[in-house]
């Protein structure tokens, strides 16, 4: 732990990443208290202040119906983070389990599992998500579902490749020799050796999931108005560029900060955990 802190401290960029991630998390959790206009997350109309640029009252300006953009960004972070966490919380275990079993057991089982994974990987992720959202109703739950479906195969492949190489290690043979079962070896012996890579990938993926989720709602397929979401805020404002620049620039920057933070932190974790890609 102390060693980890030291490496993190010696790498200023990953420290910046950690701070950004903490800042965003803090902002999201305490949005109702931090936001100057907590009600502006929902359907509020205040035409007196509609479409105003940044000012002392509205730091990041107001949108077309007069809602405070800063407040909406704080709330939008809640959705982005929750989406990222839920997606990874489902995709990671599923992908890891499939990758582990395919990698350790190998043979026919492994081949079949990995071919299924390949089928998923061969479809462009955003296209698959758009197709799914087209069939399903565009709601937050379905957005999570769509992103999860396209996310788990990456974990399956990552863990598969690690499990393949770990399978040849002496401790696996030693475990087989003491009569440990297949599941025990896969999940109790090999899995702990995969964790550093998985954790690093999860951190890096938080940023990507946020981008994908924003892309979906930019296309009108994710979170529906009036709920604040970074992607849909960018989409709404895009029509009024460059005059009402604050409508797009601040939500866009918000996405950038989140993704940047998670990526920097992920890189730092990779150094700490000694994962090489």
């Amino acid at each position, binding site marked *: 732990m102390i060693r980890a802190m030291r490496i993190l401290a010696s790498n200023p960029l990953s420290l910046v990443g950690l701070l950004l991630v903490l800042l965003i998390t803090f902002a999201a959790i305490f949005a109702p208290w931090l936001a100057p206009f907590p009600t502006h997350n929902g359907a509020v109309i205040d035409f007196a202040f509609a479409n105003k640029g940044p000012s002392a009252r509205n730091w990041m300006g107001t949108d077309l119906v007069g809602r405070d953009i800063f407040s909406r960004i704080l709330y939008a972070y809640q959705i982005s983070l929750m989406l990222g966490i839920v997606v990874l919380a489902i995709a990671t275990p599923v992908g890891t389990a499939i990758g582990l079993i395919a990698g350790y057991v190998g043979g026919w089982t492994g081949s079949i599992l990995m071919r299924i994974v390949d089928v998923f990987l061969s479809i462009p992720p955003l296209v698959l998500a758009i197709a799914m959202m087209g069939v399903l109703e565009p709601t937050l739950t379905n957005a999570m579902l769509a992103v999860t479906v396209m996310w788990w195969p990456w974990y399956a492949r990552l863990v598969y490749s690690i499990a393949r190489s770990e399978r040849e290690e002496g401790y696996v043979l030693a475990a087989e*020799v003491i009569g440990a079962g297949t599941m025990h070896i896969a999940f109790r012996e090999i899995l702990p050796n995969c964790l550093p890579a998985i954790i690093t990938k999860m951190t890096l993926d938080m940023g990507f999931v946020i981008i994908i989720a924003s892309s979906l709602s930019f296309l009108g397929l994710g979170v529906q108005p009036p709920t604040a979401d970074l992607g849909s805020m960018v989409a709404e404002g895009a029509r009024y560029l460059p005059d009402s620049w604050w409508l797009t620039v601040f939500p866009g920057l918000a996405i950038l900060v989140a993704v940047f933070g998670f990526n920097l932190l992920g890189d730092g974790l990779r150094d700490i955990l000694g994962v090489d890609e």
Partner: protein
Amino acid sequence: MTSLLDIQNLKLNFKTVQGQVEVLHGIDININAGEKVALVGESGSGKSVTARIILGLLQELRQARISGEVYFDGRDINTMKPKDCAKLRGTAMSMIFQDPTSSLNPVITIGQQFTEVLRRRNNKLAQAICDEQATRMLNDVAIPDAQRVLNAYPFQLSGGMNQRVMIAMALANRPKLLLADEPGTALDVSVQAQTLTLMRELVNDYQTAVLLISHNLGVVREFADRVYVIYQGRIVEDGPTSALFANPKHAYTQALMNAVPRIVGTGLAKVPEVSDAFLAPRITHSDVT
């Protein structure tokens, strides 16, 4: 006395792209309870596959064709269900490998790994009892500060320590048969000698039979009661260690013995620390032809 392990006419074929390759051409080995037996041979002579067959691991491999009988404790391992065979491993028989450090999982503490081994036999064993037994076993293999070792990860210990931990784990469930596949070959010679001595004392105490697989004749001579010499998948000679070493009959055994480098001479003379001779060369080279 009925034998603990009785291998009769064991043949092993591997199916490859080029066709069948026979690796073992019908070998017979038997080990009595508590007996220390060595299997000696060069690389590729079939030593390690024999061990894997005894453990029932090779039987699961589809390319392997095995015939003959491998009776362990009166039951034929070749015809046993894989599940029943897995029950024997780690309880009735266990194994020690060449490289102790890589045989231990690098991200799990020794203590946890020990617990897993002990729970193989009784899976409801309380953590406290596991720790206590592990401590006792570690003390048995001459590791005094057992608590520190139990909390350590394998990479924090030396190779010799890991080897002793491996021995302790292998013997923790009091197996009837211990397979030692070139134990400690990855370690340096003096550490290897120490651990072998330790292992011999322990198996004597526990009445565990050992099949020592080795190419190191020095080790075999020190350790085993009886020796089998395996050459190209056939047992070419067997007999009590002293007899076999005194009078090797088969040409291969003789060649094997002649291949061992011999230390000749009386070693180095001790020189008083304060004397003119102290800085003089210890060995004067002469033309010995």
